[in-house]
């Protein structure tokens, strides 16, 4: 008596397949995400470099026009093409999200790895410091830096990185505690390797896999926070286009010229999803390559 093993379909993949036109061709979710991101980034760079969109240009004859062929997302109250601005803003937002995450991750990993390896009093002190940072509401903390450095990107960089470090440090430390007693780490010690070498070459790849998934979430989160800050007027300053700022600008026209807030918002959501999908496709092979799982 034989029975077929039926592989349960991955619901996400099914959705992707349907979106891809319902054809039987295999568009994998990560590829779709990466594809969307690639298109957006290329478009954004083109728009910037070729000067198709300039931040300062206003066109007061065509204000508040609904979406049309010429203006896919309509125009805003200053007559600027919303779609163009949205695309223009893409690289800025993506860059902010990625750079702040990478900065926080690099520092957090180093801190977590070191204190996790050594343990002792240093471990306790540093982790309590991390707890203190975490105890602050995020926005309050960042606003403090913005107050010091003034509105603009510097405050955002420093604030986001510092507030991002504790979670990475915790994740790295937890992973290090787990890896610390593994026999290949003990073997590295008996082979006479220096502590730095052990942490860097032997332990770190394992810490990476523990943190990379959170890093992806952090990228998306940071973009959202940047948008939130710009919405509050604390982040990117006008006339630089930025997704959050655009959404804020359109807020007063929500009932009349709804496209100013809504369409960039939807675009933002799609890009975030694309980051997730692409990142997941990156995380598994990365951990498999470095860890040999």
């Amino acid at each position, binding site marked *: 008596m*034989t029975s077929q*093993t039926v592989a349960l379909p991955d619901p996400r993949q099914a959705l992707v397949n349907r979106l891809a036109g319902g054809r039987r061709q295999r568009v994998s979710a990560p590829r779709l995400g990466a594809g969307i991101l690639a298109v957006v980034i290329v478009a954004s760079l083109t728009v910037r470099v070729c000067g198709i969109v300039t931040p300062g240009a206003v066109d007061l004859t065509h204000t508040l026009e609904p979406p049309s062929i010429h203006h896919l997302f309509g125009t805003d109250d200053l007559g600027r093409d919303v779609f163009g601005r949205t695309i223009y803003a893409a690289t800025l937002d993506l860059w902010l999200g990625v750079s702040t995450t990478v900065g926080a991750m690099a520092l957090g990993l180093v801190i977590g790895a070191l204190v996790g390896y050594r343990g002792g009093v240093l471990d306790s002190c540093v982790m309590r410091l991390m707890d203190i940072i975490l105890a602050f509401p995020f926005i309050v903390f960042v606003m403090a830096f913005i107050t010091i450095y003034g509105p603009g990107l510097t405050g955002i960089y420093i604030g986001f990185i510092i507030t991002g470090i504790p979670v990475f440090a915790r994740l790295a430390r937890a992973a290090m505690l787990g890896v610390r007693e593994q026999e290949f780490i003990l073997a590295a010690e008996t082979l006479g390797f220096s502590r730095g070498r052990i942490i860097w070459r032997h332990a770190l790849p394992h810490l990476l896999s523990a943190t990379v998934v959170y890093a992806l979430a952090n990228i998306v989160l940071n973009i959202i926070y940047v948008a939130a800050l710009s919405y509050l007027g604390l982040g990117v300053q006008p006339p630089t286009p930025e997704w959050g700022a655009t959404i804020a600008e359109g807020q007063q026209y929500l009932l009349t010229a709804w496209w100013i807030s809504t369409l960039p918002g939807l675009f933002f959501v799609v890009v975030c999803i694309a980051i997730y999908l692409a990142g997941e496709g990156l995380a598994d092979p990365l951990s498999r390559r470095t860890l040999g799982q």
Partner: protein
Amino acid sequence: MSAVRVSPFLTLSDLSVAFPTATGRVLAANCISLEIYPGQALGLVGESGSGKSVTLRALCGLVPAPGQVVGGTLAVDGRNVAWGREQRALRGRTISMVFQDATASLTPVRSVGAQLREVLRETTGLSRAAARTEAIALLDRVGISSARKRLAAYPHELSGGMRQRVMLALAIATRPRLLLADEPTTSLDVTTQERILALIKDLQAETGMAMIFVTHDVAVVEDICDDVMVLYAGYVVERGKVSDVTKQPRHPYTRGLVSAVPRLYTPGPLAAIPGQPPDMAALPPGCPFAPRCQWARPECLAVNMRREAATQDCACPFARTGAVPEAPLAVEAMTE
């Protein structure tokens, strides 16, 4: 150990268990047949990948997904038992199992007594009081001192040997006719192992239950089993009485295995079987042991393993006809 050889109460014919892998379907167990008589102790010996554990799990209905039984029939008391629900219903009354790692098999959040009582009440419908009394009796039977006090103990509070005894108590609580033991003493100290093996033999004598004992340790099989089956790459390559197979092994793999085990008081170089355990996803045609066999010849690639394993006690046609010389096996660390 005398087992009255009437007729077997359990017959397994041509069991095959398949696992899907990235490179295709792998038969972890291939055409395995066996018969169990009341009171018999059968040993299944093999190394990793031999299929011994999978066979046991198939008998118990515990083949881990995505593997599944893809062939073979099971008959109990002459009646055919279908795989699936009907076969799983055998668990408890007819077939019971103990595992290698008691820590993983006992629920850590419930006391030992609670777990025993649960089994008793589920399978025999005893009242709470009666189940408690029976649980104490069982713990006592498996050699746990102060059984009454131990009822409230949690698994992590007991030593490895005691946990294994608790597992045995759980297994015999339902008075099974067949006990499946999957390397129950491998992770124990040798002095503890000896006590547990003695206990198992005593229980067998007392209750008349049969046993299939899976292990990689040929010496243990020599001590406690009447008959033995040697597995390699999912096939039964040799079967017979323990004394015959271990003192005069015929199949080249068995010969290698028996000679590779160091024995006390027997000096002399150890024989080593060259090569690696088989890659189940890429078995060569014919005899799976041929790549490692020092007497291999071209005809080995044409051996019909399924027929040999199903009909013969020794699956090597050349060994049976005496074409395999008595030359000592090669000794050395081989290049891989």
